[in-house]
């Protein structure tokens, strides 16, 4: 190692990540939909010209982890020119699900392409049969507008016809336009800062340090892998159902730790299903990266970039729930299946490194989309975190693949014809154990108007597992209180017409417990 590298690594780590973070701040503050401004459901990152991650801001794991796959599809697809901005949400070319719309801007220096900037945001609606575009569907075309990678800006020119035809297909086009402008503003800010960085340090130095940072993170990830016992670790778990008649959908993983490398093999997982819980490969990759980045965090605070990923190989079979192909419906793959993939990976790793692995968390993002012709609203609800070696799980939080904020009740009620009747922790829903799971949440909605509701929820049939004798967390429950006062149980995944005056109650799962009181203490 060059002698002063240790110093420069830290300096450039801070410089690159400051750019990604500033992009996020611009996006949040100028975004229009509550989804972006209140819930922060967006992510920003910098890639190099090969499409390898250089730096990212701490945003949403499922977005961030899926971006490398997006870039893999995009880099060679275009004859990149300065001023271009490409837009895509296509799950089959490296996207996640349709509401996550990604904008990519190449950054040129002296006429040569050197970096890409990405701003990905979850839009509250991308068209399709149901408001919120998170419906239980059976075909990708029902889920909304699929934007294959195409030009939003070509050499600095906004493609007006395309843009207006796009937003006209979406509900609430003004809000969509505001959010797109926020994404664009974020990319331009990132470009400005990257150019300043190059002016100050020189392109050669900046590129060299981008490379060094990757090598540094790769070394750290290899050190983590070295610390894990070699072996083959397997686990399987099930998704409840796909909302369209298929139940008990198997997700299976085999983790092979050998020769300072990790292979994660998902072969044997269920074939893709009719309903919308299929995960494109990018989502599966994001889940794998998330798990190993959390483990890496136990060694220290390392920059997250391509180097972290390179010692990890992921094997999937196209046409399965973890590698969906056209025309699979995928809206829930990103939000639900990704969580189960994490559960399966943690289950497998719990035999390799029990002192680092928590019991299963809530395992669902508990997606609720509500709307009618005049509004579209989408939110997710947290749950219980699994008990952890040495401490209980947290209650009422988003776990693993998401970390969106809630919308304040007072903001929600001001903006939409809805009322929240109850928003509380769900007592006794955490799995018992020496280190108990966290409690889930109960959220009750009152409808001030007729509306369509879509629920995409999981762990209504299979509970979040406990580990080493800890008990499982409570399963989630959804029901509707009708005008007559009757309580009608709802399936985990459903599209539903709700009348004014009815109430919807969502109880989210608790986390699994970790270790029974009697279990032998871990080494």
């Amino acid at each position, binding site marked *: 190692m060059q002698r002063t590298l240790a110093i420069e690594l830290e300096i450039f780590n801070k410089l690159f990540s400051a750019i990604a973070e500033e992009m996020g701040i611009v996006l949040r503050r100028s975004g229009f939909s509550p989804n972006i401004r209140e819930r922060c459901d967006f992510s920003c990152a910098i890639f190099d010209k090969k499409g390898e991650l250089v730096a990212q801001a701490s945003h949403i794991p499922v977005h961030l982890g899926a971006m490398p796959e997006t870039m893999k599809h995009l880099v060679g697809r275009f004859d990149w020119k300065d001023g271009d901005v490409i837009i895509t949400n296509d799950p089959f070319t490296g996207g996640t699900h349709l509401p996550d719309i990604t904008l990519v801007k190449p950054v040129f220096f002296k006429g040569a392409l050197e970096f890409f900037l990405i701003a990905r945001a979850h839009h509250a609606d991308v068209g399709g049969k149901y408001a919120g575009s998170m419906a239980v569907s059976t075909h990708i075309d029902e889920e909304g507008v699929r934007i294959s990678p195409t030009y939003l800006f070509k050499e600095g020119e906004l493609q007006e016809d395309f843009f207006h035809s796009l937003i006209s297909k979406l509900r609430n086009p003004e809000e969509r336009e505001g959010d797109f402008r926020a994404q664009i503003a974020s990319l331009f800010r990132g470009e400005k800062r990257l150019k300043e960085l190059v002016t100050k340090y020189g392109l050669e130095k900046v590129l060299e340090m981008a490379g060094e940072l990757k090598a540094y993170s790769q070394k750290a990830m290899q050190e983590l892998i070295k610390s894990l016992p070699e072996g083959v670790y397997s686990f399987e778990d099930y998704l409840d159902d796909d909302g369209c008649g298929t139940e008990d959908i198997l997700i299976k993983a085999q983790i092979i730790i050998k020769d300072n490398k990790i292979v994660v093999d998902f072969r044997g997982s269920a074939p893709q299903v009719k309903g919308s819980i299929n995960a494109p490969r990018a989502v599966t990759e994001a889940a794998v990266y998330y798990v190993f980045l959390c483990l890496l965090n136990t060694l220290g605070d*390392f920059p997250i970039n391509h180097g972290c990923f390179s010692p990890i190989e992921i094997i999937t079979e196209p046409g399965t729930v973890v590698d969906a192909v056209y025309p699979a419906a995928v809206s829930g793959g990103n939000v639900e299946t990704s969580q189960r993939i994490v559960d399966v990976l943690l289950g497998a790793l719990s035999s390799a490194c029990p002192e680092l692995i928590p019991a299963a968390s809530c395992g669902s993002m508990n997606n609720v989309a509500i709307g009618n012709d005049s509004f579209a609203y989408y939110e997710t609800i947290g749950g219980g975190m699994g008990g952890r070696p040495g401490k209980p799980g947290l209650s009422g939080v988003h776990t693993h693949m998401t970390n*969106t*904020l809630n919308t304040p009740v*007072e903001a929600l009620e001001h903006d939409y014809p809805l*009322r929240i*009747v109850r928003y509380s922790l769900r007592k006794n829903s955490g799995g018992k154990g020496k280190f108990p799971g966290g409690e889930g949440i109960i959220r*009750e909605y009152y409808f001030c108007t007729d509306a369509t509701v879509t629920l995409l929820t999981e762990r209504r049939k299979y509970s979040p597992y406990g580990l080493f004798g800890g008990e499982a967390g409570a399963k989630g429950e959804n029901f509707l209180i009708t005008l007559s006062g009757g309580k009608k149980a709802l399936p985990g995944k459903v599209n539903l017409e709700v009348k004014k005056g009815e109430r919807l109650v969502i109880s989210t799962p608790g986390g699994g417990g970790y270790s029974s009181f009697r279990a032998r203490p871990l080494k």
Partner: protein
Amino acid sequence: MNIAVDTGGTFTDVVYLEDGVLKARKVFSTPTDPSQAILNGIKGFTPTNLIHGTTVGTNAFLERKGARVAFITTSGFEDLVFIGRQARPKLYDFFVEKPAPILREDHTFGIKERISAEGKVLLPLSDGEIARCINWIKEISPEAIAVCLLHSYLYSFHEEKLKSALTEIGVPLSISSEVLPEFREYERASTTLINAYLVPVMSRYLSRLKEKLPGANLYIQQSNGGWLTVEEAKEFACHTVLSGPAGGAAGALLWASVLNEKRLITFDMGGTSTDVCLIDGELPFTREYVFDGYPLSIPVIDIHTVGAGGGSIAYIDRGGALKVGPQSAGADPGPACYGKALNPTVTDANVVLGRILPDMFLGGRYQLKKELSEEAIFSIGKKLGLSIEETALGIIKVANINMSRAVRKVSLERGYDPQEFVLFCFGGAGALHACAIAKELGIKKIMIPKLAGGFSAFGLLLSPPMKDFSLTVWLASHEKERLASHIETLRKKAFKHLKKVGLNPENFTEEIFLDLRYKGQGFELTVPFSEHFVEDFEEEHARHFGHSFSGKVPVEIVTLRLRLKGTPLAESFCIEKENSSFSNFETRVYTEEGYVSVPVVDWNSFSVGDTFEGPMLIIESFTTVWVEKGFKGQVKENYTLILERKD
């Protein structure tokens, strides 16, 4: 006599004016009873007015030694403060923790009542419910009570009804529509809860202090940079938590104004952290302050703090990179050169490089041990294969990047170009790093005030009394009449309040601001109320985000703000020159170019108008200024140093 006293962790600073001349004293703080240090500091004076910046509330909160609070909210939302915004504080961490609690889980009560988002009563608050609530409170007998009902900022009747019923219990009450009548229930609840948590602590402290200062009018500095009466601080204790840093920023603006500079980035580097604040003509405010994990949404001077200071500890991480902080050696055990523990800190790096002279620290009152600094830095250097000096330089560079990042956050990230600002540098260690920070961010001019410590106390002494009032109104921008009527209501309320806490509103001037956003947005920008506030908002939006929707998207008035500002106790000051304590000499300082010979100059040897050039070390009891090569300097009014880049 008018005196300002700022209590800090290590020192208590006393600043006063004697015939218009600013004087300062520094005494050691007495953490177990902070009032003792105040009495020590003002010994021999008879203060008429004493403005006090205190950390009693801050420390009680950080140490979680506040009151046992009962929290009352709308039924169905009992877990409001436990759920918070539903997010976890760290992303890639299985072992992440939420901030330590300030409320017991069994100390929340859901009361049956409901107001709608239009401010209408959906479910009236019944006497039976109130009785049930009172019984519950009597059962748990809390030390303070916080009340936050949904949408109370629109219609506060239910909270008021509860308040008058609960008064008989005789426990301090914090009511959300009084503490923060603004929307976003979690932020309002958290702020109200923080207030309730601190009221008993502050009341006890202030009552005791007042007893010890018979005859003096005691005023308490607040987080908005103004002071108010003890009565006010006892009722709204949450306003006192950032009073020290607020004094510093206010002081910077006052000091620089004398030199006709009003666009500043303040840079206050202390032992464990660095505070920065961007001042564009006036003190900036934020309502998004997070106090040790909990939103405190009152207007506080917008100061960004990073965990990087003189005491920050350097180490090599497992990937082989050099890191500095956020762990700090603090004042005790302190940097290695203090002789208590071999922590390689930023201060040690400065000692090794020759920028801090071991026998001139704190005016020579405290001898530093350079050999221990060298030993500590060597422990890092040997792992990197670098010399002690190269390692020290690396530590400084990494620390500078961390601190530059704080400056970026308040400037570039908010649409301000730091090159248009003066870096205003105070605090013990800031002037050692000012040139490097300026270079990193392209800042051309640095200003360093001469004040023997106590810069925050100086800010207090010249700050006005001030109180902020607010109300979420949710109007369309064209609803001018309704806006006018809300302003009138708020003004009446404000006047009544000032009278209640013992101040005469006639002596106050008012400023009105509006929090505006495009309808549909969730983040508001604050602009002064005027005929053209919509245009001003659009301009501000464009500056922050690079675009606006002029006229295309309706603008919404979210929150109305009224600030009442009085007259400061003192409005002008000057500094007298002290005797020079040593003759200038030469020393060796290690820089990028290796060792260079550098003159060491006593700040007190300067006259106004003198000029100088880097490299140079300028020394005064509590500050060392490292003027890098490439910078030229001049001495201005009040012996203020101005450093400018030569290119």
